[in-house]
């Protein structure tokens, strides 16, 4: 038996045998090629098909050799074939996507490379069909995935633009690295303007000081392994609005960590709670006023009872005392003082708003001469 090297040096016997073998091998290569190969004449009649063409189209070789190209190509009409052949002659070769129809009517996509040659004055068109169903499927899946991603991005962007809360990131120098659009509605500054600022410029000094204290405490906690690295803190901060006034924002803040787990920045979501804060403050003052009214009621009740007795008895004594009696004037003075006290309780009973005043430099008392102040009353 010949070894492989010997066969490579002299594979064929003589010249005729060599041609026969070459033809046989060429035929074999074409027959067994993985892509479909179809030959046709200038009328579109199929004159050769390989095994792959038979398999992919579901016909026997004999069946295909009795058919024309339009039988297996749903997009090709018999009367246009001649023009296409003319084009092919002009172009020489052409590659395009088309569809093939199988014996059972199924359609599948193919990439076709056509070529032609003329043999003994006869035109032969050659079609190399590559089934691209899998590629098309992959392309379709990729397109679907891209479409889903685009939709997801659009949704995300829409949400980011529509949400009233502001999303932001800060580096460890307290400089913003991202600010969402909602910042403009809440505080008047556009995201671009925000990126030029430092946090210390955005908030009141009291807020900044408090924030630094909280952050220092949180950084200290980093040493404790029991503390969760993805924890968040909620902190209420007073921000400057572009127009100069301030607004209160509640911030939920979390650390951004690098691959080593070291804090590289902060990210958070800010919600405008100014209205809530004002409502809380109003509620506090309403409750305080309610307490003052109740206390005033108690004082009035407790004071007016004995005052009634003193006033009544004084007036009874006055009725029985002659005006020239030295005690008469004294009784008048007692009555005057009771009336003075009554004026105080009258004022207390008419409280609607209140204002405090400094008392002796060490405390605050209610200014009973300004019980109807409403602009700053009780604030």
């Amino acid at each position: 038996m010949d070894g492989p090297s010997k066969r490579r040096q002299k594979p064929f016997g003589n010249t005729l045998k060599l041609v026969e073998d070459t033809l046989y091998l060429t035929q074999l290569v074409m027959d067994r090629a993985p892509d479909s190969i179809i030959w046709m004449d200038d009328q579109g009649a199929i004159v050769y098909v390989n095994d792959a063409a038979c398999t992919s189209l579901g016909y026997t070789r004999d069946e295909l050799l009795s058919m024309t190209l339009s039988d297996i190509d749903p997009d090709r009409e018999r009367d246009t074939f001649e023009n296409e052949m003319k084009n092919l002659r002009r172009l020489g070769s052409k590659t395009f996507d088309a569809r093939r129809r199988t014996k059972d009517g199924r359609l599948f996509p193919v990439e076709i490379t056509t070529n032609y040659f003329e043999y003994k004055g006869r035109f032969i068109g050659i079609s190399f069909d590559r089934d691209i169903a899998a590629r098309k499927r992959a392309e379709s899946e990729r397109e679907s995935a891209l479409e889903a991603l685009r939709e997801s991005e659009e949704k995300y962007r829409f949400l980011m633009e529509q949400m009233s809360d502001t999303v932001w990131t800060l580096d460890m120098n307290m400089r913003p690295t991202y600010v969402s659009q909602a910042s403009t509605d809440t505080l008047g500054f556009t995201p671009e303007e925000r990126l030029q600022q430092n946090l210390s410029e955005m908030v009141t000094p009291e807020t900044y000081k408090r924030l630094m204290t909280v952050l220092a405490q949180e950084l200290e906690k980093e040493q404790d392994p029991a503390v969760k690295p993805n924890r968040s803190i909620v902190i209420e901060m007073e921000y400057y609005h572009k127009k100069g006034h301030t607004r209160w924002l509640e911030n939920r803040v979390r650390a951004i960590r690098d691959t080593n787990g070291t804090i590289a920045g902060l990210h958070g979501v800010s919600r405008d709670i100014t209205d809530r804060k004002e409502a809380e403050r109003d509620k506090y003052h309403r409750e305080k006023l309610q307490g003052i009214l109740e206390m005033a009621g108690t004082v009035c009740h407790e004071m007016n009872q004995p005052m009634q007795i003193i006033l009544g008895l004084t007036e009874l004594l006055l009725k029985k005392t002659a005006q020239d009696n030295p005690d008469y004037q004294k009784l008048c003075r007692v009555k005057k003082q009771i009336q003075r006290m009554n004026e105080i309780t009258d004022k207390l009973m008419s409280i609607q708003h209140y204002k405090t005043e400094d008392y002796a430099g060490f405390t605050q008392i209610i200014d009973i001469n300004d019980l109807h102040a409403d602009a700053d009353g009780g604030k």
Partner: protein
Amino acid sequence: MIREVKDTEQKQILVVDDEEEILCLLKEVFESADYGVWTADNAEDALNILKTNILKVIFLDLNLPGMSGLELCKKIREKDQIAIIHALTGYSNFFGLLECRAAGFDDFFTKPVPIDIILKAAEEAFEKLARWKMD
């Protein structure tokens, strides 16, 4: 039914207050003007007095132990729509006045009230009652 009060008959007043000193004072004030005075330091005693006596001029403290002056007024009004009932209170405000009017009080005084005003209120009440009887 309204009991006719003859000119010669002493006019009677009911005073209800939980503070003894106030009761003593008002009793002395009204008696000084020749009124007969009934006193009670709680609502239940006041209702008992009214069961056996026809008293048409009444002064009630609002802040009574147990049944309040407002409730007492409502109870009296259930049986007597003619009596003239005055509220005497240590503390009140506009809403207190509204409550009193809704409960059936005819008038409303915040302590301390000068005795002349109290006497005038009593006098006017008896004048009204006299006028109503004429009609």
